[in-house]
């Protein structure tokens, strides 16, 4: 590499990404295991069972992503749908380091 100062690119390495995946699974596991050691006070009948919030988080988010994906088929349009001109010149308040 000609660049004398080595760039920080830790997140690009497959090994780091694997490590982060592991970390994510472990944290998920820990948050669920921690429920064994606490005493919750449910306010409704449905939120009393073990791992309720984990289920809400997982199932809820999955449903929302699928719903968004489904609606996307119907709602998504090309960028230039409204036929507005793409600005070729950057506005003044943008430094545009790359321009």
């Amino acid at each position, binding site marked *: 590499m000609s660049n004398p100062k080595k760039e920080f690119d830790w997140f690009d390495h497959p090994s780091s990404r694997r490590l982060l995946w592991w970390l*994510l699974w472990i944290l998920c596991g820990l948050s669920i295991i921690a429920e064994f050691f606490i005493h919750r006070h449910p306010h409704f009948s449905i939120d009393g069972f073990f791992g309720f919030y984990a289920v*809400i*988080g997982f199932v*809820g988010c999955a449903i929302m992503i699928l719903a968004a994906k489904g*609606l996307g088929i119907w709602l998504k349009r090309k960028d230039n749908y409204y036929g*507005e001109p793409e*600005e070729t010149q950057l506005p003044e308040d943008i430094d545009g*380091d790359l321009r």
Partner: protein
Amino acid sequence: MGIFDNLPPAVLLFVGACIVPLLKGKVRNTFLILVPVAVFFYIMKLPIGDGLSFSFLPSFGEIEPLRVDKLSKAFGYIFTINAAVAMLFAFYVKKAFQNTWALVYIGSALGVIFAGDLITLYINWEIMAVSSTFVILARDTEKAKGAAFRYVLVHIFGGLLLLAGIVMNISAGNGIAFDGFAYADANIATTLILLGFLVNAAAPGVSAWLSDSYPEASVTGGLILSAYTTKTAVYVLLRGFSGWEPLIWVGCAMTVFGIIYALLENDMRRILAYSIINQVGFMVCAAGIGTQMAISGATAHAFCHIIYKSLLWMSAGAVLYRTGKSKCTELGGLYKTMPLTLIFGTIGALAISAVPFTSGFTSKTIIIAATEHEHLLWPWLILELASAGVFLHAGIKFPYFVFFNVDRGLRPKEAPKTMLVAMGILAFLCIYMGVRTEELYSILPYAVDYEAYTVPHIVTQSQLLMLSALVFFLFLPMLKRTATISLDTDWFYRKGGKLFYKLMDSSLNGINAAVHKSFIGGMVASIIRMASEGPAKILILVMTPYWAVKGIDASQQKELRNEIRTSVETGAFPIGITAWLSVLVLAILFFF
């Protein structure tokens, strides 16, 4: 202090806005920071109670441009703190236009907050609409002009609803005082006022102005806009419509709507715009619940939300400022060269997701606890789901697609120092208010008996968030960005407007063309023809049988016809014929 005891804070900002164009360069930009700082301390000093009021017309009631209580003070604090830090972020701006209008905009928002009557409120409401339009226009691109045009039309519509409601309320003999309207006495007047407020709160159906216009504003313009219009609407809902049950459902719908659209969106600042709708949904829901706990929760949430949302807009703004790009499909891998922007942006992202030890955790959860206290099962469940969804779209999606994802070869410089300092201040506040809850809770309108930091709460919140994060990364292939936009309700007036134009064009211009063709082209021409050729034709009609009887052949007849025509055209009849015709006419008149 004398007169300064009674001056509405808005006036100070309006005066400041008048001075701004007279100053230059760094002096001006420093002045822009100092004005909101000064107003912050002024608001802190304002004594609780009715400040300034005067009689306008005897039957009208009191005009009250300054009413100070804990609710208005809390919003006053956050509006001015945010303004000062935003102006620090905007230190790079060279022209006066945008930030002058921004001061007017912030001033009029404060004018609404401290208004004790509907007339003062309405005037400031409209100043807010106009000045914010200029803030959008300041970016000076074709897209911004189009968005500003649509923006101001929607807000004029909302303002008219509000005005109609106020006028009807006055004519019903209810005066101009702006206090809580009772849900039990709901009528057309109060409903119209509510609808006017909901336009600014970006309620479903009338929310498209927000996601359409804010992302088209400049780097700082979007940042400043993101804080005031919707939060002013939240304030007036808390003040005027607390306990209006339908608002619970409006709020719930907003939280889900914001998430779904933010998940579909490609433009990073549009993701943040939809996320405002999601967050304001929590506050609108709280207004609907209307208990003291809910009102305080919404105030705390508005306070914290303005800070972390500004922080997110700042980090997105810094990226836009440096790269000139705002689409996820064009961004990625920026962690390498903009690490500080990433860190500050991530703190904002964690705070909006209500991660423990950030401000979202100590504020948003009060609203959720309020639903629990009132045993509102469905609203509670929707808000919990929405909390998980926030982590998806704002907490992870925004930083992930901008700073990580694919390296697109962009190597911009780190954000300018003033931007970094501004982001640093807000990032500090996000954590400070997440830890020092008592200081946040002390400014709320009602004392809250709520403890955010219990072990079970931290555990359940961690479960909710960690599993949401897991879903994000498991479903990542489904979240791949595409260079698309999503249709929103602005479709109706953007495409509908064009359709209306075309319809009017083809129908009205069609009628016009048909009328032109038949009258100007047809009737007038035939009248002219009749006048010029009619006499000759009649003569020929009369003479033809005569010629036939006389035995004149066809070619001679043709000659005679031509003779008649030229005689008529030139008016050169032999005297005999003219006299003969005159006698004929007189004879007809005589006998009939």
